[in-house]
């Protein structure tokens, strides 16, 4: 195939011979053309990649949060919970019947559903596959979840709930 093409090239380009000189020039041209091609591919590929990845970059910036202040959470009644956003992911704040507070990630460690608080049993329950977690420690009690929920630190400063990474 390539020999055919070479023999059809117009004047100026000698077909390759055994001694190898024209092949050298051909090989050089090939490498040079490939290098230029690679430069173009990079010059087009890089902006396109950054364009596509832009929301991912924005999200990872938003996820780099260490502390969230919840001004109205102090009004949460006893034995109740609320879901809030910690960075980009949902988290759960539980007001226990003994007036203590717990904050945990609200993402089930099994397949990523958002979990909820069950006041009657005082456990955290995932409706997707029935996993339950301890509402105070986040430990996985029953069902498919392989790991406990990550716990946050809860502090009350100036009448506001402040949740931070431990």
């Amino acid at each position, binding site marked *: 195939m390539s020999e055919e093409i070479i023999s059809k090239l*117009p004047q100026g380009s000698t077909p390759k011979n055994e001694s190898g000189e024209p092949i050298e020039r051909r090989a050089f041209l090939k490498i040079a053309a490939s290098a230029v091609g690679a430069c173009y591919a990079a010059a087009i590929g890089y902006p396109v990649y950054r*364009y596509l*990845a832009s929301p991912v970059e924005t999200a990872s910036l938003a996820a780099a949060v260490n502390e969230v202040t919840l001004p109205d959470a102090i009004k949460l009644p006893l034995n109740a919970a609320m879901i809030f956003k910690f960075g980009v992911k949902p988290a759960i704040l539980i007001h226990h019947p003994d007036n203590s507070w717990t904050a945990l990630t609200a993402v089930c460690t099994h397949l990523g559903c958002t979990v909820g608080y069950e006041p009657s049993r005082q456990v955290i329950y995932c409706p997707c596959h029935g996993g339950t977690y301890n509402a105070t420690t986040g430990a996985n009690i029953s069902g498919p979840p392989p790991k406990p929920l990550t716990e946050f630190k809860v502090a009350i400063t100036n009448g506001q709930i402040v949740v931070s990474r431990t």
Partner: protein
Amino acid sequence: MDKLSSPEHKQSGGINSLSSKIYSWVDERLGISGIAKLATKKRVPEHRHSFWYYWGGITLFFFIVMCVTGVLLLLYYRPGDEAYESVRQITYDIKFGWLIRSTHSWAANLMLASAFVHMFSAFFMKAYRSPREFIWWSGVILLLLTMTFGFSGYLLPMDSLSYFATKVGLAIPGVIPVVGPWISDLIRGGPEISAFTVSRFFALHVVIMPALFIPLLMFHLGLVQKEGMSIPESELEKPVSERRSIPFFPNFAMQDLAIWLIALNVLALFAAIFPWGLGEAADALKPAPMDIHPEWYFMSSFQTLKLLGAWFPGEIGEFVSLGLFGLGLLLWFFIPFFDPSTKGGKRGRLATYFGLIVLGILILTTAWGYWVLPAATH
């Protein structure tokens, strides 16, 4: 399998023999070697007007760029109420979004420009003559579709200029007697340009237009393959032995590739150095911007409308210019019937004069249109 495992084949490199195996497997089923053979047989005439053969390819290149950048813009663009905000995000928030959008807009303009060059060169080389009438007709329709692409895409950012330019553009069909206002309302999705209009134009721009354009483009390109490149009269007068041609593959294809590379560089320069701007959000309650004008490819009709409007006040003016444009377009479209001869002759010369007059009017009215624009754009 026996061949693959034989010692000579192992020596000569397993990858080559594997790829040739895969090639012959695919070839048996798809018959690609037949196409490859056809490509090596195909020849392109070479003469002093050969330069014009590249412009169809350049137009095609810009169309491909439009498709790629258009799909990329689709990822973040939201039609309807959020249209302006989403374009603002693409332009200012999303990484390299400005470049993608700028490339899309510049490629649109360059595509139209090269399509015009392509059409006029085909006209003056009399490439519309038998047996290429359908190539001409499909080409003219492709250009009209491209202008519709431009018109529908222009509104999508919903900034002040695009809003008012579209408002003016959509008022024009309104002068058609009886059905005009009804047509305008139907296109707009109401009496005013709104989020409904944007959604309609969006559907037109990304679904309906490509669905019409791409099959017609295939038809156009397929016919060019079937009939080969048109040879101008001056060349046909020469004896066959004196006519020169080059193989399509690799010679013409390589030259085409080189031209595409130039087109890519020109596009990249324009897109990066003159990034496409975004005006204020459209507001129907603000007066139209002083420098309101359509895109350059509608400037000629815009200016003609203004001129005839001065001579024929009221809706008559718009009606007269619509009529004139319609008539001119019909003549242009059916030129293969008026000038069918393959020899020179009176009709051939008349057709050339007609082309020169059309080109002259287009250039003159476009330049005039820009000349009388308020200083804001200069």
